[in-house]
């Protein structure tokens, strides 16, 4: 029988093959290799769906783990095995579908965005997309931390290549460099974490009886013989440190504070790439990683609390910056940062399902919004300034409708998909936060971000589509074909309906089983299930759900609060910007405006650090040339000086020679005679 799991490597390899085809044969192919990419990603999508369904099968495996390739093996009694393998469980299967789906749609959209716009260098573009997809898929199926890290880095490389696609301009290469460098800074900590995991556990497997989360649990439970902690730390303390180190990579890739600065700059890349980065690949990788090794974090509550706090803070912090942006993609960029903050909050709050859920819904509506923005940009002849737009809804109805669906989802308006997932996050954060102040802080910040999100989202919608056209191009927008509308429609539908797969509040209220996603995620193998994580959290993390009144009232309070705030934000935006001639209201913010425009001076701060580093480097260079090399040259100078002195002995006067000769002999005679006692 042909099992779906046999084809898991093919899911990764198909886009990789399309990368090779586009790179080496792209210029000889129609559409610059796009068709190969579409075929490959679509093929991967089909395989992914097959794999995901196989997991549901009654008799089939619930989890599939297989070592495919041994990269390096140690020696000795318990050698380290550095391997590549696949781990398919509901989480990764879900992620595979998300990634391949978005990738396929992005490929199709690119036909409209890149090919039809007459871009050059298309083989390079499609090669980049293929490799990007392949790397992300490799990361998703990784069955150990090292493999995950390796594909994580490859994702970083691809983002560099694609963000810097328009390398002949000044902006994109700079943004690409920044993206790679900032995430590299996070990956530095991640790599320490990987190394520490190996040093501590001797393995980096995610799943199985010998996996490091299992060993960590055993160590925390008291069996410290299975791990080597460092500096004589208690296992819990050490695991917290390791967890935070790995978190460094997550913070970098998922653009969490303070390493979020690369993401807005990354808008310099082509818009379909932004969609891919934000919805399915690079940024999602960070959150996915935490979910993937959730069993490990579950035993270190301190790390979780920090994750939650960072997430909540980022959600609020990024949302405030999104309020004042002029470019449509900038707004979306900050919204991405903010939304991933929610996911981190969810993970920190112990609600693994909520995070995954939001990851999924966000993937759909954010891809939709970016592709929609891309369509607007095509229409606007690559002018991204919202103040030059206005009134586009009549000229491009499909775009408007889908964009609106996505916006409603983003703002968390009932019953769009974003509402369900965001609401679940806030609810979980709330109930667990009742017993944990740090978590509660995260919840408060997450809640505060809700109206702001709704506000900036609809500010964007109104400015772009409503009112009167504010420029010539907005009056006569550029047209586009099916390859743009198609993906928008698919995603538009998903943005509306995706939330229905996990209507936990409805279930709680009505008792009907509507938590399909929760059940699916709970169906994985041992140690990788939702309920398993909850047990760990309860046992080692002291996570205990609190209630206000009854469970139902708690639920209603939480949901009502978030929905109410979202609607408030929406209404404010409606009031201010849904007018024929909207004006900027930023002046009302006073001093705060400048701070927000300048992103809290975070970029300046990082540039300052970069410049200081360069100054230090310059000083080091001076030191090296002057002092260290100076000593080297000094030694030779001193020797040569000695040589010149020595030469002067030879005066050229033969009588001097005779005298020196006599003197030398006399000195020798006297020294030896007196010391040797010859004359006694």
């Amino acid at each position, binding site marked *: 029988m042909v099992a779906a799991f046999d084809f898991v490597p093919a899911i990764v390899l198909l886009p990789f093959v399309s990368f090779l085809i586009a790179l080496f044969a792209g210029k000889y192919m129609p559409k610059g290799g796009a068709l190969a990419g579409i075929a490959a990603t679509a093929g991967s999508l089909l395989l992914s769906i097959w794999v995901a369904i196989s997991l549901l099968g009654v008799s089939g495996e619930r989890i599939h783990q297989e070592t495919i390739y041994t990269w390096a093996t140690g020696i000795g009694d318990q050698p380290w095995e550095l391997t590549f393998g696949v781990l398919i469980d509901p989480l990764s299967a879900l992620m595979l579908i998300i990634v391949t789906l978005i990738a396929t749609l992005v490929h199709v959209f690119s036909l409209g965005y890149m090919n039809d716009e007459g871009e050059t260098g298309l083989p390079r573009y499609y090669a980049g997309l293929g490799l990007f997809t392949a790397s992300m898929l490799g990361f998703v199926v990784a069955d150990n931390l090292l493999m995950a890290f390796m594909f994580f880095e490859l994702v970083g490389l691809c983002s560099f290549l694609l963000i810097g696609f328009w390398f002949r301009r000044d902006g994109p290469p700079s943004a690409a460099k920044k993206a790679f460098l900032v995430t590299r800074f996070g990956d530095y900590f991640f790599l320490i974490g990987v190394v520490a995991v190996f040093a501590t556990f001797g393995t980096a497997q995610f799943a199985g009886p010998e996996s490091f989360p299992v060993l960590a649990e055993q160590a925390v439970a008291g069996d410290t013989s299975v791990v080597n902690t460092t500096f004589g730390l208690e296992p819990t303390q050490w695991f917290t440190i390791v967890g935070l180190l790995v978190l460094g990579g997550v913070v970098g890739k998922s653009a969490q504070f303070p390493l979020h600065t690369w993401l807005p700059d990354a808008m310099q890349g082509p818009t379909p790439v932004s969609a891919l980065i934000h919805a399915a690949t690079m940024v999602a990788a960070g959150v996915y990683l935490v979910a993937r090794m959730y069993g490990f974090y579950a035993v270190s509550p301190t790390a979780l609390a920090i994750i939650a706090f960072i997430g909540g803070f980022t959600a609020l912090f990024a949302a405030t910056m999104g309020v004042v942006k002029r470019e449509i993609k900038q707004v979306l960029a900050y919204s991405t940062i903010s939304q991933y903050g929610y996911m981190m909050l969810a993970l920190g709050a112990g609600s693994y399902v909520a995070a995954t859920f939001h990851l999924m819904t966000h993937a759909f509506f954010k891809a939709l919004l970016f592709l929609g923005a891309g369509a607007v940009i095509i229409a606007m002849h690559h002018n991204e300034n919202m103040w030059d737009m206005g009134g586009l809804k009549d000229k491009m109805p499909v775009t408007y409708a889908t964009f609106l669906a996505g916006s409603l989802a983003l703002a968390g308006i009932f019953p769009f998909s974003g509402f369900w997932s965001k609401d679940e996050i806030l609810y979980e954060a709330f109930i667990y936060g009742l017993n944990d102040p740090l978590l509660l802080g995260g919840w408060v910040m997450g809640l505060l971000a809700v109206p702001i999100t709704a506000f900036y989202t609809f500010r964007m919608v109104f400015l772009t589509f409503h009112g009167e056209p504010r420029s010539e191009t907005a009056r006569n927008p550029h047209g586009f074909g099916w390859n743009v509308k198609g993906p928008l429609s698919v995603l538009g539908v998903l943005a509306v309906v995706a939330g229905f797969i996990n209507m936990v509040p409805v279930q709680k209220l009505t008792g009907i089983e509507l938590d399909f996603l929760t059940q699916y995620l709970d169906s994985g193998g041992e140690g990788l299930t939702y309920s398993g994580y909850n047990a760990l959290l309860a046992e080692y993390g002291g996570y205990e759900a609190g209630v206000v009144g009854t469970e139902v009232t708690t639920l209603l309070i939480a949901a009502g609060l978030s929905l109410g705030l979202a609607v408030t934000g929406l209404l404010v935006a409606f009031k201010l910007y849904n007018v024929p001639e909207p004006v900027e209201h930023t002046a009302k913010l006073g001093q705060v405006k400048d701070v927000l425009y300048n992103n809290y001076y975070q970029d300046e701060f990082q540039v300052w650090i970069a410049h200081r580093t360069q100054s230090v480097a310059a000083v080091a260079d001076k030191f090296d040339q002057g002092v260290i090399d100076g000593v080297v040259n000094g030694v030779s100078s001193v020797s040569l000086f000695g040589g010149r002195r020595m030469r002067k002995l*030879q*005066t*050229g*006067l*033969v*009588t001097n020679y*005779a005298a020196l000769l*006599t003197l030398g002999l006399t000195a020798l005679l006297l020294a030896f005679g007196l010391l040797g006692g010859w004359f006694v």
Partner: protein
Amino acid sequence: MVPPEYYLLLSAAVFCIGLFGVLTRKNALYFLMSVELMLNAANINLIAFSLFWGNMTGQTFALFVIALAAAEVAIGIGIILVLYRNFGTVSVTDATTMRW
């Protein structure tokens, strides 16, 4: 019989006189003569101790030395001659084209 120490003192004195000449005289010929003195100081020793030890080795050697001294002077004079032709002087301190 004269004690051997006296011969040693005499020869040492002659040697030192020769050495003094070598160190102070600039004229090449004086230099040569001074060296002759030093050689003869050695001869004094050789002959005196030949007597002291009662063998002929020293005396024979002294004859060899006298012959060699003559040969040395011969070649020395030759060199001083070409020195005079090239530098127009027989002073040993004038030829200093090479130094350091």
